[in-house]
């Protein structure tokens, strides 16, 4: 097995493992905001798989597009998590802003 083959296998295992961790977290966590941590994990799993394809194929049509797919997912992921958290607060409290009586921990300066 060549060095490239080993790197590809490691990246592929890492990517699939991260996707499995994301599915496990989705099932195991108790509330919405705890579950919201896992789309990011899943996105990094996709990125590892895309880099594995890129390492195997180099700068070719499939390699470039795999990297482009990973870039799209990594840019879209935080946006999606943010708007989902905002929607969850709006559903629960009627507004995303801090509500009267809601305890907010002060940030130390």
């Amino acid at each position, binding site marked *: 097995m060549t060095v490239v083959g080993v790197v590809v*296998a490691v990246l*592929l295992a890492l*990517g*699939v493992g991260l*996707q*499995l961790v*994301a*599915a496990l977290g*989705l*099932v195991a966590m108790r509330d*919405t905001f705890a*579950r*919201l941590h*896992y*789309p990011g994990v*899943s*996105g990094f*799993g*996709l990125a590892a*798989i*895309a880099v594995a*394809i890129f390492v*195997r*194929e180099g700068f*070719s*049509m*499939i390699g470039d*597009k*795999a990297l*482009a*797919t990973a870039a*799209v*997912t990594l840019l*879209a*992921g935080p*946006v*999606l*998590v943010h*708007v*989902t958290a*905002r*929607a*969850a607060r*709006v*559903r629960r409290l009627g507004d995303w802003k801090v509500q009267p009586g809601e305890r907010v921990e002060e940030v130390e300066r």
Partner: protein
Amino acid sequence: MNEWGVAALVLFAVLAVCLVLPALFDPIDGLIALEIAGTTGTAILLLLAEFVNRQSFVDLALVFALLSFVGALVFVRLLERGT
């Protein structure tokens, strides 16, 4: 079957989890499952393009990544307003 096909098969299990979960919990949790299913589906399409050795199939993964982002945003708007 090589390692790409095996990886795609394992990811189908992840996809099955994301399909079952929305039936059990709150709709907003189903939305999170949809987001994870979007990235997992993209990964499956990438792996299958490499598995069947058709380079043009990777276009499907790129388009699916863009469309799943837009689709999830639409569901966010819907769930923010409705019940």
